[in-house]
C-alpha cells in the first residue's frame, strides 16, 4: 500500500515524502487591505483577502492553487513575492524566514524581536518547528545581537537573491511586457541587473532562452506587439527562466490563451520543469488544468484554505463540500459522461464581511448549526489530506 502511494506520487514527479525537501513554506499568511472613506480617508473596513493560509511547496513539484475569483489566490502569489507586504504570517524559503526582507531595517529588527526573540526569552520556551529550533540555536550561541545580525544583516543582498530565486509569469501577456522595449532588452534586463551575465553574453544567452521556449532567436530584435498571445507568454516564461529561479509562480499563465495554444504552453512548461528541475506554484481557477499539471493541490475559498491533498487523493476523493461542488460544476467535454451535479446557491460572499464560522456555510448544501458558529480548522483526516470542514466527506 505504502509502495503504491509512493509510486503514484513519483509519477506526478513529486519525490517521496521522506526525501522531499521543503522549498517554500507559508505559515498562517494574512493579508488585509484597508477600505478608506470620507474626507480624512479613515479606515472604515478591511478586505480580508487572505486570512490565515498555510501550505508547503516541495522541491521539484507543482502545487496547484485553485479557487474562484475573489478567493485570494492571486493575493497569495503577490504577497509571496512581496509585491504586497503581508499583514502577518511568515514566508519561509529553504529554511530561512524571509518575511522581513523587504521591510526597512528598523522594522525588520522589530519583526525579528517580536516573532522570535520575545518568545525565546519566555521561560519554558519550546521550539514549535524547525525554524524555531534553528534560530533558537543561534540565539543561545550568539545571543540576541547575533540572531538579529543573522536575520537582518546585509538585507540588500538577501533581497536581491530573493528576487532572483522567485519568479512570476503573469496572466495577461499583453500588459506584462514593456511595449517600448525589444525582446532582447526585456529578457536581458534581469540577468544584467543581477550580474549573472556580461553585456557581451546578452545575445547568446537571450538567443538560447528563446530557442528553449520555441521562438526563433532572430526574433529578439522585435517588439512585443509583433508577437501573438501565445508567443508573448512564451517570452514571459523565458524571462522567468533566465533568472535560474528556484520557484516559478504562474498566475493564470494560460487563462488568456486560445484552447489550441493553451496546450502548447502547458506542455512547454512541463517539459521545462523536467529539464531544469523547476518548482511551480500554479495559480488557476481551472480545476481540469490543475488536475493535469499539479502534483499537489490547494483549494481556497474566501481567503482560506479549505482542502489540500495530493492530486490523486483530491480528485479521487474530495472531502470538502466546496471542492466537490467545484468539481461537479466544471463542464466535462464528454456528452455521455454522467455525473452528480451539485449546483451551489448564491454568490461568493464579500471578503469584507465574511460569514461567521465556516466561510462556506451559507452556500453549503450540508451545513449544520455548528458550521455557522465555529470555524473549522484545517486538519489532517488522512495522510497528507487536510480539510477544513466539520463534516468532511458528508456531501
Amino acid at each position: 500500500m505504502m509502495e503504491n502511494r509512493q509510486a503514484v506520487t513519483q509519477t506526478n514527479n513529486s519525490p517521496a515524502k521522506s526525501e522531499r525537501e521543503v522549498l517554500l513554506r507559508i505559515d498562517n499568511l494574512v493579508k488585509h487591505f484597508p477600505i478608506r472613506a470620507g474626507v480624512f480617508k479613515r479606515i472604515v473596513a478591511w478586505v480580508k483577502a487572505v486570512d490565515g493560509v498555510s501550505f508547503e511547496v516541495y522541491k521539484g513539484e507543482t502545487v496547484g492553487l485553485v479557487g474562484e475569483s475573489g478567493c485570494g489566490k492571486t493575493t497569495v502569489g503577490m504577497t509571496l513575492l512581496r509585491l504586497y507586504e503581508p499583514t502577518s504570517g511568515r514566508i519561509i524559503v529553504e529554511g530561512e524566514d524571509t518575511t522581513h526582507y523587504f521591510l526597512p531595517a528598523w522594522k525588520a529588527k522589530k519583526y525579528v524581536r517580536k516573532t522570535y526573540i520575545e518568545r525565546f526569552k519566555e521561560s519554558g520556551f519550546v521550539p514549535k518547528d524547525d525554524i524555531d529550533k534553528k534560530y533558537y540555536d543561534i540565539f543561545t550561541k550568539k545571543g540576541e545581537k547575533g540572531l538579529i545580525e543573522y536575520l537582518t544583516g546585509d538585507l540588500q543582498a538577501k533581497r536581491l537573491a530573493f528576487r532572483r530565486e522567485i519568479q512570476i509569469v503573469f496572466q495577461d501577456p499583453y500588459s506584462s511586457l514593456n511595449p517600448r522595449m525589444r525582446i532582447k532588452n526585456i529578457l536581458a534586463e534581469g540577468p544584467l541587473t543581477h550580474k549573472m551575465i556580461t553585456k557581451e553574453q546578452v545575445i547568446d544567452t537571450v538567443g538560447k532562452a528563446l530557442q528553449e521556449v520555441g521562438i526563433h532567436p532572430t526574433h529578439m530584435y522585435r517588439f512585443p506587439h509583433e508577437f501573438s498571445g501565445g508567443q508573448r507568454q512564451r517570452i514571459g516564461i523565458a524571462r522567468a527562466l533566465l533568472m535560474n529561479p528556484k520557484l516559478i509562480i504562474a498566475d493564470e499563465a494560460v487563462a488568456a490563451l486560445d484552447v489550441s495554444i493553451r496546450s502548447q504552453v502547458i506542455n512547454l512548461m512541463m517539459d521545462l520543469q523536467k529539464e531544469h528541475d523547476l518548482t511551480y506554484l500554479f495559480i488557476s481557477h481551472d480545476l481540469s488544468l490543475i488536475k493535469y499539471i499539479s502534483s499537489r493541490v490547494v483549494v481556497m475559498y474566501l481567503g482560506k484554505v479549505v482542502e489540500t491533498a495530493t492530486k490523486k487523493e483530491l480528485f479521487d476523493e474530495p472531502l470538502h463540500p466546496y471542492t466537490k461542488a467545484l468539481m461537479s460544476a466544471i463542464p466535462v467535454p464528454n456528452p455521455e459522461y454522467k455525473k452528480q451535479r451539485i449546483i451551489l446557491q448564491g454568490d461568493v460572499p464579500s471578503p469584507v464581511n465574511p460569514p461567521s464560522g465556516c466561510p462556506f456555510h451559507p452556500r453549503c448544501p450540508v451545513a449544520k448549526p455548528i458550521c455557522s458558529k465555529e470555524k473549522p480548522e484545517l486538519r489532517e483526516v488522512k495522510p497528507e489530506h487536510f480539510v477544513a470542514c466539520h463534516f468532511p466527506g458528508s456531501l
Partner: protein
Amino acid sequence: MEKKQPLLSVRNLRTYFYTEDGVVKAVDGVDFDVYEGETLGIVGESGSGKSVTSLAIMRLLDPKGRIEEGSQIIFNGKNLLELSEDEMRKIRGNDIAMIFQEPMVALNPVFTIGEQIMEAILLHQDVDKKTARQMAIEMLRKVGIPEPEKRVDEYPHELSGGMRQRAMIAMALSCRPKLLIADEPTTALDVTIQAQILELMKELQQEYGMAIILITHDVGVIAENADRVVVMYGGKVMETTDVKTLFKKPKHPYTWGLLNSIPRLDVEQERLYSIPGMVPDPLHFPPGCRFSNRCDFKEERCIIEMPELVEVEPGHYSRCFFYHKLEEAQKILKAGEGA
C-alpha cells in the same frame, strides 16, 4: 430523422470587414440550420468568426463590416437580409434575442434593471407601463433573482456578475423570443455561477420552447448543453453534427485536435495533444484548406485546394479530404492510453 422545417437557415453567409490593411474575411461562406426548441452550439477560437456570425444574424455589425451579396439568413421563411431597418427592429428582441458575454458592458449603466427590461416589453407588446413593470418583476423572479420587487429598481452596478447575467436573460426573454443567441454567456463568470446560469437557460428553454444558439470556446459547455454542434475555424464551418457523434467520432483534424488538447476531469491524461502553430491571422489565411498549415494529417492537395463541406455520414458534415485518417490516429491514441 424526419425532415423538419428549420427555424433559422443560414446559407452562404459571408461577412467581410473592409479595413485599411485589406479585406478581413471574418465569415466566409457559413451554412447551418437551427430547428425549433434545440440548442445549436457554435464552437471556435478567437478569430474563427463565431461572434461575427451571430451579429450578422441580428444585423448588428459595425459599419465597416458588410454582409456580402448572395448571403441568406432565413428566419421563419423570411430572408432577414432583405428586411428594412424598421422591420428588422420588430424582429430584434421580439423574435430573436441576444445575450452577451459581458453583462456590465451590455447593460446600460444609467438606467435601472427594471427600466431596461420594460423598454423591450413596451416596444414589442401592447401594454401600459404598470403592467410592463409587473411583467419585468415576474421575469426577474423567473430568472432566480431574489427580492425582484426591490431589485427591479437597482442599477446594473449594484448587482453581482451572475445576477447581471440573470438580468440580461430576463430582458432577452421578456418577449418570449423564438430564438435566443447566447454569445459566450458564461465566459466572464466563475464555474459555480456558470453552472447556475446554464441550468437556468436549460429550464427556461424547456418552459418556453425556444431555440438557442450557444456560442462558446469552451468545449465542455458545448458537450453538456448543445444538441448539435457547428465547429468553426478561420471563418468557415469545419464540421457539424450532433453532439454525441462529434465527441465520439470527430471527422475533422481540427475538431480532433481541439478535443485532445484540453485537460479533462473525467479521464487521466499522460500528455496533452497540441495543435502546432498559431490561430491564423484573418488577413493572411493559407491558400487551400484554412487549417492546412497546422494540420498533422495534411497532404499536398490540402495546400492547393479548399475542401467542401461534405456529408461523410448521415447528418455529419466535414470539410476535410482526409477525414478517414483520423480513425487510425484515434486508434493509436487509444492504444497509448491503454498502455
